[in-house]
């Protein structure tokens, strides 16, 4: 097990290194940089002033030097200075992280709360109208654009109840009730979308387990056996679900970007979009690496969890 984990970590590290290169290059491919944007807020351009600012920001050095400098910064824990705000990037990002993590966690909880029960019901009542209805419901969540769902929610609340959820961030310290309401809707919206895959996996996995012979025989045998079989079937069926939760987490971040924008939550995802538009390289690079690390770690965690839960993997793999 240990060698497995170490191996995976090494691979993860290499992958991250590769990603850092990709991000670094991609960002600089984008036309225009922070200096151009600074000048655009000033309404004019001056080549001499531009030179001076680029020197000040260290942007006039050759690219490979800047890249190595960035790697060095990450390793020493210094996440660089935001080009836009002239302050350490970490200082600016730090208060945003809990908001996004909270939203992500709540969304996953809703996803599981919606996905697993509907998947179970759908499997048990396979091919009935209820099954079809649930599958359509689940698929609809996957098909709706996340930002549109958010818009429609707010619009419906305004039109039908003349009520708008708090649109400026309410800290849980100040008013936890309002804070809960504020996070409930976007978490539901994102959770609904993520529940689709979970529902599908739960359903198909349960179907597969239930199809096995010994299950069918025991089922036919009677009541008491059923409950035990039921529990056993469920436990086995839920194994793939754990994997999917890990995968979903990665997709989640995409939905978070627009949801945070529509519901005006001060999270990392919303900030990322702004930072990209402003070509704030240090912030974008570090945020994207942060997201990548979270995704890789969660995948690793899920893999290891799988290894713990399913002994076949541990020794086979």
């Amino acid at each position, binding site marked *: 097990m240990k060698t497995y984990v170490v191996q995976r970590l090494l691979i993860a590290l290499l992958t*991250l290194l590769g990603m850092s290169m990709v991000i670094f290059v*991609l960002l600089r491919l*984008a036309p225009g940089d922070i200096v151009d944007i600074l000048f655009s807020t000033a309404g004019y351009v001056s080549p001499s002033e531009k030179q001076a600012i680029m020197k000040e920001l260290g942007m006039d050095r050759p690219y490979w030097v800047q890249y190595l400098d960035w790697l060095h910064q990450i390793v020493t824990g210094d996440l660089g200075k935001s080009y836009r705000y002239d302050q350490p990037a970490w200082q600016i990002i730090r208060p945003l992280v809990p908001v996004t993590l909270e939203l992500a966690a709540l969304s996953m909880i809703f996803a599981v709360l919606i996905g697993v029960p509907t998947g179970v019901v759908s499997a048990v009542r396979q091919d009935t109208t209820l099954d079809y209805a649930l599958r359509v419901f689940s698929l609809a969540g996957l098909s709706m654009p996340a930002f*549109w769902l958010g818009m429609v929610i707010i619009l419906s609340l305004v039109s039908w109840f003349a009520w708008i959820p708090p649109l400026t961030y309410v800290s849980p310290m100040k008013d936890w009730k309002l804070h809960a309401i504020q996070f409930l809707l976007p978490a539901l919206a994102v959770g609904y979308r993520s529940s689709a895959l979970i529902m599908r996996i739960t359903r198909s996995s349960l179907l597969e387990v239930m199809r096995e012979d010994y299950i069918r025989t025991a089922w036919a045998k009677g009541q008491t056996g059923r409950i035990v079989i039921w529990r056993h079937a469920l436990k086995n069926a839920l194994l793939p679900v754990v994997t999917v939760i890990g995968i979903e987490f990665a*997709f989640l*971040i995409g939905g978070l*970007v627009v949801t945070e924008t529509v519901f005006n939550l001060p999270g990392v995802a919303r900030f990322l*979009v702004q930072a990209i538009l402003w070509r704030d390289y240090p912030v974008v690079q570090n945020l994207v690496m942060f997201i990548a690390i979270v995704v890789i770690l969660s995948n690793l965690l899920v893999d290891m969890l799988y290894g713990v839960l399913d002994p076949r993997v541990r020794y086979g793999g």
Partner: protein
Amino acid sequence: MAVRPAAIAVPAGARPRPGTGTVIARFVRKKPLGAAGGALMLVMLVTAVFAELLQTHDPIATDAAYTLGPPSLEHLLGTDHLGRDIYSRIVHGARISLVVGVASTLMGSVLGGIIGLLSGYVGGKTDLVTQRILDILQGLPLLVLALVMSAALGPSVQNVVIAISIPIIPRAARVIRSSVLSIREMQYIEAARALGARHPRIAFRHILPNTIGPFIVLCTAQLGSAILVEATLSYLGLGVPEPYPSWGRMLSVSAAEYAQKAPHLVLFPGIAISLAVFASNLLGDALRDTLDPRLRGS
């Protein structure tokens, strides 16, 4: 005439393949949901191709006298804040969504498929290295990567297609590779190899046709998310530029602002996107169930 190895690859006693009509009819009967999805996609395709015939107004013509008008006989789905006919814009938006969705899906899937095919077939170190490189691309969430690429390349239809296709490549490669890995060991492939068939021939003649099933499933699955990503990019302002009507862009800025006075601005483009993705998902699910029962559980 020499006996071609292809003739040997088909197992003896195979039944003649059924006609296309029968295949479709069987599909409709067994998978009504999937057939519905397919029909919906067909409607979208027809709309996209015949957009000029189906429109009631010029989609970019403004009409100052009739801004934010509700659905009426003249404007089937109402007008937006510049007086442009929403129905006609949605009809043309189908073209953009389909073109971008299909092009990026195909590009990404074909490129990824070839990489996956070669990587899976050749195996060994090449496979390992390729997989790690693909991991890098896949490690980033689709939208984030598309965002950065879109910003990097600038707003234009081609660039949006490229930006969306790149995250698809590793996903396609993965699917095709696993399919290749399972087929590679099959007996008739070994037989072909024993008969002296060359590697490229084996790869393309024997393995490839058997990956078509998973490939089609992959494409339809990715099409839905490609359409969604395009809509999201356009909504954020990084997607298809004016004057091409894009469903996603119709939902940005003005739609949300005037939503209370004119909810149809928000409803109809969103419904269009949802229907398109929904249809492709339905079709994809049904195709997967039919073509590749092994994948049903995945």
